[in-house]
């Protein structure tokens, strides 16, 4: 009680004027029944008979105080998001403040099993696109609580922001990937119990744990004493993910001797009802200990990892889905002697070790320092082949559309072949070897090659991180109305990108040469070498076996450090937050293999002499030598950001607050290097990303009503990205570096939960997200190919990126893709006697397909005749809008207490009850053009590829606690 800090709400409640003043009251602490952790923002309503006497909101540490009560009998009703409503009787005697001590709430267990597992793992690696999920945590925000759970199936992104902008912290350390910036949920998926305890702020709000950006900040505590006490277990099946998840956890809570221990283990196994070839064989373990030395010092040690593998899902064209009559067709797998095998398997084992020190010398000061180290391996398999036919079943030359097109300009008209291709794909079960990967053939081919040289292998692309992080934060209550928050952080990241031979598929070896270079440079064998140094030493290309590195090998090196400081000033019902951040970021590439096409110079700066010939290097636009081996130029950025937040509490139930922020951030490593697999070349015009963001919010919380309404406006300028797509026409990776992408995201959010008043314990809940996320600039693009020093297109404008403009001035705006810009949910929620039943109807609209920059260039629009017509502009540059979708979801759950000691419960979530199987959740345009037309006047697009949402599916979770 010493550290009792009243929230402004409680303050407000306590200053309500009454005609008569009493000395009596009631106080206590609201805690979670299971973990005994404080429950913040619980709403306490004091009733006398049917009339409401007073309300209060619990403070950060769960405490509350209701004063000015006359003696008498009261009913105290406690409501908190994600907890069951609880009532207790209170008697106030003799004018004393009655101390209720701990009032425990039982969690609703509305299966907040949201982690990366909730999102299908899309195989996008060879497409040049990415689609990393963002996860909205329920926490205690009414909008996030509903949207986070209901909208995950359509890959809803709050306010249209990308995954990179969502700051995810673990034990005070920012965990967003150093190379890509993506939020890193996969690192702990399967450890739901250990990572359950977290704190989230939205938008540009300021957090105690870090400065944050404009898309919220979530800090996961992750230490032993934050894991719910006791022995717990759960068994879960999810018909759209995996057959079985078993999970167990044990935590001691903080014991009298100052120690706390916690462990969490799980296994996720099996396939699902919807996507063949996708499976899990993933395990997870977590061990943690806390030791409190005295009131002021605490050490936490955490170690966890989620070793395992999972099969990935690939996108196909609508033609394939229609022929198969199945939008969930997955081209990644095939039969090997009658058994299913996936070509694309993600194999990860990335342990994380954390040492954290918390220092709380007084009520006024708390500080912490964390060291976090991430290491291990992250591999992703794929087929690779040398001078052999493309083994992918849905390769465009295997499809009916390759043999007939009603447009005669496409030059495709062979009805015999068309009919046969159609026969194959419409009778897929009769042609499993043609409609899925034919593993047996790959082995059969390898078995008859001279010298045991495999033509097909399974490669494993590695992205292995060595990530060392240091973070220190403090919070100092400098004065009654001033809180200062700040921190320092540093990161050293060395990520090795390479690939190994994972499976020779029956052959004896694979040869470490560049297949595509061989086509152009067969007469110069040195140019074919992926490892020229090996060739120079041994006089022949390297033969590689299982586990050997080949193809490419380089380090991405990232360093950053920075500091931040925020201050919160409170004047009565008004408070203001002001903060700033300053940082330094640098990164470079360090090549570990000398590639024949980009040999550079030798160690002394002289031309390399190979096979008796001195090799002329190629040069970068800035005149430096293009090189594959060694350290690249170091890109350095000074980053800074500032934020202001204003907050006004009205009458204890209502809050109006606003935030504004400006961010100057460094681009990411993967947005900068043109072709990191082969050389040090970087985007010529590197600029920091500049973001301005502001939001205005209104929140009401009282009488069982929870509402939040927000309006936001954000501009993000000078974004760049490099899309690296496998082009099977060139048999090489083609790289598109785009810079100068500006976007504007604006919209409104509404979330509410209100009692129906008609039926007790029945609430009406809903969310509405109306956004407009659009591109506002004309970026530039440079196209290169991995296997050539030439620049295919050099810094050309992409004039149709932000819109399609016809000659009469008609414009069609282009939008930020891969999330619905309109999303709504309306439903009923019933909570009583440890039962909960939720039923929701959802609508999603205004979702757009990701665009490729090539189709928005003058080159693509003009076609071969160099003549731009409106028809070509409209055809080539338009952006596809997905059909809107309606979904119905129902959840039901119940828990029982047995002998007041054990708890058993279940929850069943049935999703997409309308069995809507035509909801596109993402996809991409292929980055290439059809040019072999009759007229030689124009280009055509290749069909885009899509991912679809599963039909009706369910998740059943049974949990128990001892």
């Amino acid at each position: 009680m010493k550290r009792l800090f009243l929230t402004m709400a409680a303050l407000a409640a306590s200053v309500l004027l009454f005609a008569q003043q009493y000395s009596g009251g009631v106080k206590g602490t609201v805690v979670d029944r299971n973990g005994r952790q404080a429950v913040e923002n619980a709403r306490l309503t004091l009733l006398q008979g049917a009339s409401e006497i007073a309300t209060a909101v619990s403070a950060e540490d769960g405490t509350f105080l209701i004063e000015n009560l006359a003696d008498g009998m009261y009913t105290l009703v406690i409501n908190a998001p994600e907890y069951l409503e609880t009532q207790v009787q209170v008697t106030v005697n003799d004018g004393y403040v009655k101390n209720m001590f701990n009032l425990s709430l039982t969690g609703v267990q509305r299966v907040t099993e949201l982690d990366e597992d909730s999102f299908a793992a899309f195989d996008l690696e060879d497409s040049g696109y990415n689609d990393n999920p963002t996860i909205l945590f329920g926490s205690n925000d009414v909008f996030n609580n509903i949207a986070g759970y209901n909208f995950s199936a359509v890959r809803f992104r709050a306010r249209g922001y990308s995954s990179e902008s969502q700051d995810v912290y673990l034990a005070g350390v920012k965990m967003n990937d150093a190379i890509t910036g993506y939020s890193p949920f996969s690192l702990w998926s399967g450890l739901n119990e250990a990572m359950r305890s977290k704190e989230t702020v939205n938008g540009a709000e300021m957090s105690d744990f870090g400065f944050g950006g404009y898309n919220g900040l979530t800090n996961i505590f992750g230490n032993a004493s934050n894991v719910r006490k006791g022995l717990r277990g759960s068994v879960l099946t999810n018909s759209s993910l995996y057959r079985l998840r078993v999970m167990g956890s044990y935590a001691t809570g903080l014991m009298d001797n100052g120690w706390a221990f916690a462990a969490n283990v799980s296994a996720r196994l099996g396939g699902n009802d919807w996507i063949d070839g996708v499976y899990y064989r993933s395990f997870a373990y977590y061990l943690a200990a806390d030791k409190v030395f005295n009131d002021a010092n605490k050490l936490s040690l955490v170690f966890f990892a989620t070793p395992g593998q999972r099969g990935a899902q690939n996108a196909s064209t609508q033609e394939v889905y229609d022929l198969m009559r199945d939008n969930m067709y997955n081209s990644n797998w095939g039969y090997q002697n009658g058994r299913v095998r996936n070509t694309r398997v993600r194999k990860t084992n990335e342990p994380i070790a954390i040492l954290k020190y918390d220092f709380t010398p007084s009520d006024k000061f708390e500080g912490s320092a964390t060291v976090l180290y991430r290491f291990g391996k992250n591999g992703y398999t794929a087929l690779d082949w040398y001078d052999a036919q493309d083994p992918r079943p849905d390769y465009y030359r295997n499809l009916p559309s390759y043999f007939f097109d009603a447009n005669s300009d496409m030059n495709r008209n062979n009805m015999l072949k068309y009919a046969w291709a159609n026969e194959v794909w419409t009778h897929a079960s009769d042609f499993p070897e043609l409609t899925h990967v034919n593993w047996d053939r790959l082995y059969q081919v390898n078995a008859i090659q001279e010298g045991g040289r495999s033509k097909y292998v399974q490669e494993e692309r590695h992205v292995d991180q060595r990530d060392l992080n240091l973070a220190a934060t403090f919070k100092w209550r400098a004065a009654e109305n001033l809180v200062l928050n700040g921190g320092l952080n540093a990161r050293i990241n060395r990520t090795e990108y390479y690939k190994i031979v994972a499976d020779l598929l029956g052959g004896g070896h694979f040869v470490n040469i560049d297949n595509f270079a061989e086509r152009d440079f067969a007469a110069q064998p040195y140019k074919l070498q992926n490892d020229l140094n090996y060739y120079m030493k041994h006089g022949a290309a390297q033969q590689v076996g299982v586990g050997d590195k080949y193809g490419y090998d380089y380090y991405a090196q990232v360093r950053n450090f920075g500091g931040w400081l925020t201050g919160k000033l409170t004047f009565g019902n008004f408070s203001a937050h002001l903060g700033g951040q300053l940082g330094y970021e640098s990164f470079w590439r360090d090549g570990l293999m000398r590639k024949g096409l980009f040999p550079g110079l030798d160690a002394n700066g002289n031309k390399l002499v190979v096979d008796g010939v001195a090799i002329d290097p190629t040069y970068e636009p800035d005149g430096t030598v293009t090189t594959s081996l060694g350290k690249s130029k170091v890109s350095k950025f000074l980053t800074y950001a500032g934020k202001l937040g204003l907050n006004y509490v009205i009458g204890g139930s209502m809050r109006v607050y606003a935030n504004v922020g400006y961010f100057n951030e460094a681009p990411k490593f993967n947005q900068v290097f043109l072709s990191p697999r082969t050389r040090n070349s970087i985007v010529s015009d590197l600029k920091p990303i500049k973001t301005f963001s502001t939001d205005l919010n209104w929140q009401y919380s009282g009488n069982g009503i929870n509402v939040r309404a927000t309006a936001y406006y954000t501009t993000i300028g000078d974004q760049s990205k490099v899309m690296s797509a496998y082009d099977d026409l060139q048999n090489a990776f083609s790289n598109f570096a785009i810079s100068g992408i500006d976007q504007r995201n604006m919209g409104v959010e509404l979330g509410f939960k209100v009692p129906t008043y008609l039926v007790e314990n029945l609430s009406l809940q809903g969310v509405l997200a109306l956004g407009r996320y659009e591109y506002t600039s004309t970026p530039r693009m440079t196209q290169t190919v991995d296997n050539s020093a030439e620049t295919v297109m050099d810094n050309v404008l992409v004039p149709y990126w932000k819109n399609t403009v016809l000659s009469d001035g008609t414009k069609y705006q282009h939008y930020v893709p891969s999330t619905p810009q309109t999303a709504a949910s309306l439903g009923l929620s019933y909570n009583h006697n440890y039962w909960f039943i939720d039923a929701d109807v959802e609508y999603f609209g205004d979702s757009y397909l990701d665009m490729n920059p090539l189709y928005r260039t003058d080159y693509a629009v003009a076609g071969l005749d160099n003549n731009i017509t409106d028809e070509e502009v409209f055809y080539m540059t338009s952006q596809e809008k997905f059909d809107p979708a309606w979904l119905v979801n129902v959840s039901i759950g119940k828990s029982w207490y047995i002998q007041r000691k054990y708890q058993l419960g279940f929850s069943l979530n049935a999703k997409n009850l309308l069995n809507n199987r035509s909801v596109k959740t993402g996809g991409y345009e292929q980055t290439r053009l059809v040019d072999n037309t009759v007229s030689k006047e124009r280009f055509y697009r290749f069909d885009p590829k899509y991912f679809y949402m599963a039909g009706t599916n369910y998740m059943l979770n049974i949990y128990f606690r001892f």
Partner: protein
Amino acid sequence: MFAATVALASCQSLKEEWDPVLTFGEIEPAPLTLYTESTLPGFSGHFTTIKQLKSKYKGGGVEVSGNTWIKGQVTSDDRSGNLYRELYIQDETGGIDVKIGKSSLYSDYKLGQWIYVYCDGLTLGAYNGMPQLGLEADNTSTNEYETSYIDLQAIIDQHIFRGAYGTPLTPAVVGEAEIKAALSAGYTGELWGKLVTVKGLKYGDEIFALLYPNSNLAHKSGNPENRVFLSTPQNERDRIPGFDYTWGIDTWAMSKALYIDYIRSGNWDTAEVGSGSTRYGPITGRPKDYLPPGITLQSFGTDADLTYKEIMVKYATANYVSHYFTLGGTSIQVRTSGYAKFSDEKLDARILDGSATVDITGILSIYSGAAQFTLVDEPSVSVQVN
């Protein structure tokens, strides 16, 4: 409840699906089964010879019927890249080009391997007089072939059956008389499509190559503004005395890089843009200088300001070359693809200067009434010093 979940999870556990989850070992792949005459599906029991098959040809191409099967041994190998999307098989009566439209056929079809072809439903056609077995021709306006590629695996699987691995065939040595006989027989000449060795070929000091300055634009004969011929003028009067009609090309063909080197060498500067009777002028000029405003000039876009030479460098691709040789009084072209791995290999200097003759092994074909050689691989050329 726990049991129910486990039951629910396991009752759906299709055996196939649990395999990758619970099986940590390797799955033994199904072995390749090679066909024998007794296992061929629907085999009539009778093979037609390749010679008999060719005799069924009718102008414009003919769909084969009558339960026709042929068999032969593989004589071609596309490893070097000089052959592309075609497989040659031969029996004792002759050889034929089976247009299996896949790349890297040598992965699946080995030299000397027995191949059985169920011909019904395939189309026997001719390409400039050369027999080919493919599928019905594409019904497109640009189509200039009597057959199309057998490129859909489902169709290949119904017509092409792989048999036992035999020993690679020894090429027959043929002389001028046999070649002349085959040329006069035309389409049914026994040599076409066969792997043969011709000895004592003498270099003819001329080459033929057709170049497309902008390789992305139309290649048709109706687009002379995008054609450059490297050849010896048909008309004696047009020949420049003393001019080197090899155009300085001393390699079998030219990769993209070498093509650029050749363009820049200046040896081609007198080559004219144009085709047939439409001649614009040498490649040192610009489209803008040669072409009237309109579609054809416009199609060059801003490139119209560049010289043709510059355009050729900008849109360079690998290119084939035909070298002329003579055997007595018979001319034989050796045509090599720019994508062949040996494309940039130089012809032996003794061949070029005429001090040596050469023995060539390859697939012999007929092209517009003339004999043409396709090298399967470079080593099949052996130089005989006179």
